[in-house]
Every structure is written in C-alpha cells, then in structure tokens.
C-alpha cells in the first residue's frame, strides 16, 4: 500500500499518542485485553445468609437484593473461611484457607509469603486496583497488601469522625492500632495514666457532637466501629465515583462494616420488625455465654433492621450503576466475611463455634450480560479469587486452594470445604488449638480442640436433612465420621508441613 503525503501527515498526527506512557498497552494504561471486565467486590461485614430473606429468612429484610439477584447468580451454600473478620477476609483476598495464610488473630496479618499472594497483586498489572474498608481489622490486611493496591483510600477515608490515631496517621498501622488500644482504649485500665483521661474526654465530646448532628437520621447512633463513625450513604457515593470515569478496567474491593455490631439502622428502618417473631430455641452450645432468648431476640431484631438499611443502600447503588451502564462491563460481587448468630446462648461472632449462621454468608455475582442462576453446590470464599481470575482470562496460581466456579466443569458435590477458628493457636505453630469444620457430601463435621477446661469434642450434622443443625449425629454414622475426620486430619497435617517448610 502506498501512502500519500496527506495520509502520512494524518498518521503522523497520531504519533504523540504512541509516546504517551502506557500506550503500548492501550490508552488505558493496564495490560488487560480490551473488553476485560471490571470487578467490584462489595463485602458487608458480619452478614449471615441465614438472616436474609434472599435465602428464605422469614423477615423481609433484603427486598432490594432479592430484586437485583433476579439478574445475577445466587450461591445458596457459600461458606466463609472463618467466623470473624481477619480469617474470613484474608481467605477471601488470598484464595487460601486460614491454615495457609495464617491471619487468624485480631489485628493479625498473613505470613509474609501472602504479601504478594493476594487478589490485589494478581490484578495489579492488568487492572486499576482500589480498596477501602470501614473495618480497622481489614485495614490491617489492606495495609499489608498495599503494594498491590493502586488507589487505597486509607482507614480515615470516609469516616465522619475517628478517634483512632492509627486511622488518622495511616502509618505503621498494625503496631500503632494495637498500642493505641493498650494506651488509650483499654476499658479496664489503659496503660496511659493521664493522656487516656484527656483522650477519653475529647472522644466523648466529639461523639456527642456527632450524635447530635445526626440525631434525626440515626436516632440510635451513627454507624460505627466503636472507634470511628461513617454512613453507608457516603460509602456508596464514593463507590460510584470509583466505578465511573476513573480508569478501566478496575478491580475494586470495598469492605463495609454494617451490619456488624453495633446495630444502628437509619431512622426509616427502626422498628421495622416489631413482629415479635423468634425462631424456636436450639440446644445450648458448649461455649454458651448464657444469653437468654429475650436478649437474643432483641439483638436479632436490631440486626435484621440494620440489614434492611444495608439492603436499601445496596439497592440504591445497584440501580444507579445499572442506570449509568456501569454494570455492562463489570462483574459485581456481593458477599460477606463471616456471619452472626443469635442462638444456643451465644450472640454475635466472638466465640469459638462454627455453626451455620456464622459460616453461611451470601454470595451473589452479576456478570455482564449474564443470566440469572442458582448454584446449590457448596462453595467456599476461597473460590472467589480463582473464579475472578478465570473471568479475567488469567490462570489461578498454585497456592490458591479454591476452585473456579465459572468453570464449565460443574463443581464436585463431594469436594470438601473448610472453615476454622484458630485465634488461640500461635501464628506459625502446628494447628492444635481451635475449631475446624469440614463440609462434604451434605455433612458437616466440626471439631473443637485445645480449649482450656474442655475436652476435644466433635459435632456432626446432616445439612441436607437438618440445615438448622439441631440434631448432633456424633458419634453415629461412623463411616462418614471416619472419612471426614481423616480428610480433615490429612489437610491439617499438610498445612502444618507447608508452614514448617
């Protein structure tokens, strides 16, 4: 083909574009092929699937999510990696179980190997990665994974007020936040003799000011993590700014604290469920805190109202994104890091148990042009990372323990899924203290071991016939027990072996 002088001049006018940074990877600056979908992961902290009308809960607390889910894929048996924020979130972000990443303490970090083995590192080259969390424990992990996060808003990003110096400084976050607790916050006597008194006075005054400012909108208190205050509205508005016009493709992780305790729904959701409904009581747990049914009923109602607030804000975000066309090329994921419980004499999630309300979390995925679907096979939070990698055309690295659920090969029903609580076990020590659950073939075996004053014991439930875990089958069904127990032991031994290497 012969170029005329005019053609040459036209082409040469485009020459400066080639000199722009990143022009070799398209004008977007990321090495993802054109058409690679964006990814947005929304995590509502402590949201139990067992308490959502989307999953059959009797109180209609998730109407917006149910409506939106008609266009997405709903996972009906999705399990968290642990029963509180750190292990649950770390498993979500690394695709590995807590016995591998070893982030299973309050303010715990993963082992150093996982600083580069996480979702942000894997998408860093191809996507604009961004992250935000209301939850200070998640911020410990985000700070650790910061290398892979291009736009990290930082702990104080969307807070109306924070009394946390660690949030404000954002530096040396893990040690500073721990020290801050010890020096200033510790309820039964902080290490600081004088400054803690001044700090507490200042904090109470600021909290009272904020309470007055938002008294009409949030009569029972502004949503908070005890140390910092925020609204879901601000978070949703911020997400919209990140999703539209900030550079594509993106991979965003937003960890919202509601409906985590304290339950502080917006005014229009207060008293929404004064129906007096309570589920029938379940057998007392060996770890019971002796919470009575009246107390648990009250907490459950407030939690349900807080979920309704989350649902309304999610609905608003979903509608706005849909209207803006932002979902046309975005995989939207809604999930949680762990659940919440109001039964067996136990409240919330600060206990060693691994019952369904703590482990069963929602997972709904909307894919561009995707059709509505329902996945009934058990899935794990560790499956999310390999699945998103596959959707972006990338292979899963070998350390990922989950399985791609977008795969054409159906998920194996006989695949084992694990969840665990290891906060009493030293970080790198052999796994001898904690709770371990293995779910396979419709059965769930939970083993509690190494607890002071309690002998090792196990519980076995048939989740198909007894989804509420009322009838402990242990020690009946010896064949199933043996098979599940052996698989669990093998995996614990393998994890210890990997750690020792």
């Amino acid at each position: 083909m012969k170029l005329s002088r005019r053609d040459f001049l036209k082409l040469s006018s485009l020459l400066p574009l080639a000199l722009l940074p990143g022009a070799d990877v398209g004008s977007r600056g990321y090495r993802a092929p054109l058409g690679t979908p964006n990814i947005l992961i929304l995590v509502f902290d402590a949201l139990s699937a067992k308490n959502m009308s989307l999953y059959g809960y009797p109180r209609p607390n998730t109407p917006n999510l149910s409506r939106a889910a008609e266009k997405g894929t709903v996972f009906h048996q999705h399990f968290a990696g642990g029963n509180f924020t750190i292990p649950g979130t770390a498993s979500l972000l690394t695709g590995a179980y807590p016995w591998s990443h070893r982030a299973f303490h309050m303010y715990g970090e993963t082992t150093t190997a996982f600083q580069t083995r996480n979702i942000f590192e894997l998408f860093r080259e191809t996507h604009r990665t961004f992250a935000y969390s209301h939850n200070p424990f998640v911020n410990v992990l985000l700070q650790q994974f910061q290398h892979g996060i291009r736009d990290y808003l930082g702990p104080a990003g969307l807070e109306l007020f924070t009394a946390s110096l660690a949030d404000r400084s954002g530096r040396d976050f893990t040690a500073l936040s721990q020290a801050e607790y010890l020096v200033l916050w510790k309820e039964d006597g902080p290490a600081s003799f004088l400054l803690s008194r001044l700090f507490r006075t200042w904090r109470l005054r600021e909290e009272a000011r904020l309470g007055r400012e938002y008294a009409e909108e949030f009569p029972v208190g502004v949503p908070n993590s005890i140390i910092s205050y925020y609204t879901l509205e601000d978070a949703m508005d911020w997400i919209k700014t990140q999703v539209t016009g900030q550079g594509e493709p993106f991979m965003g992780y937003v960890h919202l604290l509601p409906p985590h305790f304290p339950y502080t729904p917006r005014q229009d959701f207060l008293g929404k469920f004064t129906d007096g409904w309570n589920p029938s009581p379940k057998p007392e747990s060996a770890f019971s805190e002796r919470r009575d049914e009246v107390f648990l009923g009250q907490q459950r109602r407030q939690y349900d109202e807080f979920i309704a607030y989350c649902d309304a804000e999610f609905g608003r975000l979903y509608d706005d994104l849909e209207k803006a066309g932002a979902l046309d090329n975005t995989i939207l994921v809604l999930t949680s890091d762990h659940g919440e419980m109001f039964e067996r004499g136990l409240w919330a999630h600060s206990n060693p148990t691994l019952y369904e309300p703590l482990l069963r979390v929602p997972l709904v995925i909307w894919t561009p042009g995707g059709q509505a679907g329902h996945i009934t096979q058990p899935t794990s939070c560790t499956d999310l990372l390999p699945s998103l990698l596959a959707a972006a055309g990338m292979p899963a690295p070998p350390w990922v323990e989950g399985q791609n659920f977008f795969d054409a090969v159906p998920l194996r029903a006989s695949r084992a899924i694990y969840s665990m609580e290891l906060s009493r076990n030293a970080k790198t020590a052999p796994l001898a203290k904690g709770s371990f659950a293995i779910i396979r073939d419709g059965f769930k075996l939970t083993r509690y071991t190494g607890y002071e004053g309690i002998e090792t014991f196990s519980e076995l439930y048939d989740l198909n016939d007894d989804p509420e875990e009322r009838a402990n089958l242990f020690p009946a069904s010896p064949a199933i027990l043996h098979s599940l127990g052996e698989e669990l032991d093998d995996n614990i031994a393998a994890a210890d072996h990997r750690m020792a290497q």
Partner: protein
Amino acid sequence: MRANFTRWKATRLLADKLQFALMELLRQRLPSRQEAAALIMVIALPIHIRAWLIFLHEAPGYILRMTLWDVAGICAYVQFTTFLETAIFLVGFLFLSITLPEKFFRTYFVPQGSLLFILFFFWLLPFHNQYQVLARIGWDLTIYAKLVAAWFGLFALLAAVFLIGLRRLPRLVGFIQSSIRRITPLSITYLAADLIFILILAVRYLG
C-alpha cells in the same frame, strides 16, 4: 524623630527590666537541675511500672500472633507515652513552682512534688474504671458529678494535710529523700529504656 527615639529607648529599657525580672523570678522559683531530676525519678517509677505491667499482661497474646519487631513496636509506642506523661507531670510541677509563692512550693520542691504526685497517681486510678462506677449508679451523671467532686475534695483535703505535715515532720522529708535515692537506679533504667524504644518508634514510624 528624637521623640520617637526616646520612646523607643524607654520601651527597650522597660523590656530589658521585665526580662531581667522574669529571669530573676525563674532563677528564684525554678528548682535546680538536681531537684528536677530527683522529682523525675519519683514521677517515672509508678507510671512506668504500671505501663509495663499492662503491656506484659497483653504481651503473650502479641507474641502468639506477631513478629518480635511488631511487639517491640507496640512496646515502643507505650513507652513513648509513659515518657511523655513523665515530662508533662514534671512541667506541671515546674509551673506550680513558678506560680505559687516561693515558700509555699519552691522550698520543698522535691518532697512536696513527690508526695503530691503519689497521692494524685492513686487518686486518678479509680477513674480508669469509671464505666463500672457509672453502671453501678445507673448512669446518673448528676450523682457521678457529685462523686467526682467529693473524690477530688477529699484529695485536696488529704493533700493539704500531707503538705502541712511535711513542714512539721523533717523525718518525713528525710524518708522521701532516702526513698528517692533508692529508686533512682530503677527509674534511670526505665528512662534509658524509653530512649531505646523512642529510637525504635522513630525507625518504625518514619522508616
């Protein structure tokens, strides 16, 4: 022009006089370095012992889940705070020494400061459990305010008794001074450790 110069000179003279008077006041009222150092020893000891005990109580949990460098980091922030508090108390006593009449505070700077601090230290401790107190009285802030007023009223009374007693009992002064000599090596150890931890803090925070 000349009038301006005279005014300037007069102002300058007045400023010099004021400065001289202030320096003289500070010289008379401020304690010597030895006295200040002795009081630091008294202040540092209980503050540091308490902070260390609280830290060591939590330390096994930290060791369970963190690297030693991170544990040292937490300790560094705690020790920095105790160091800061020691300094704040010293400044407070220096301020009292300057502002109160000389014979009232300056003369007995070390024994009076020591006695006041120890008393204040134990007086403040219950306030770390104020929520338990509030819960016991049904979160009634009016009752709480009265309790606080009564608590500090008692403190003022007791402090006055001690301070008057101090002037009448030279043996008490002697006991305080000999106690300070005994605790000095321990306090110096704590303060030296503070400096090391402040260095660790600087490396962690600024590094």
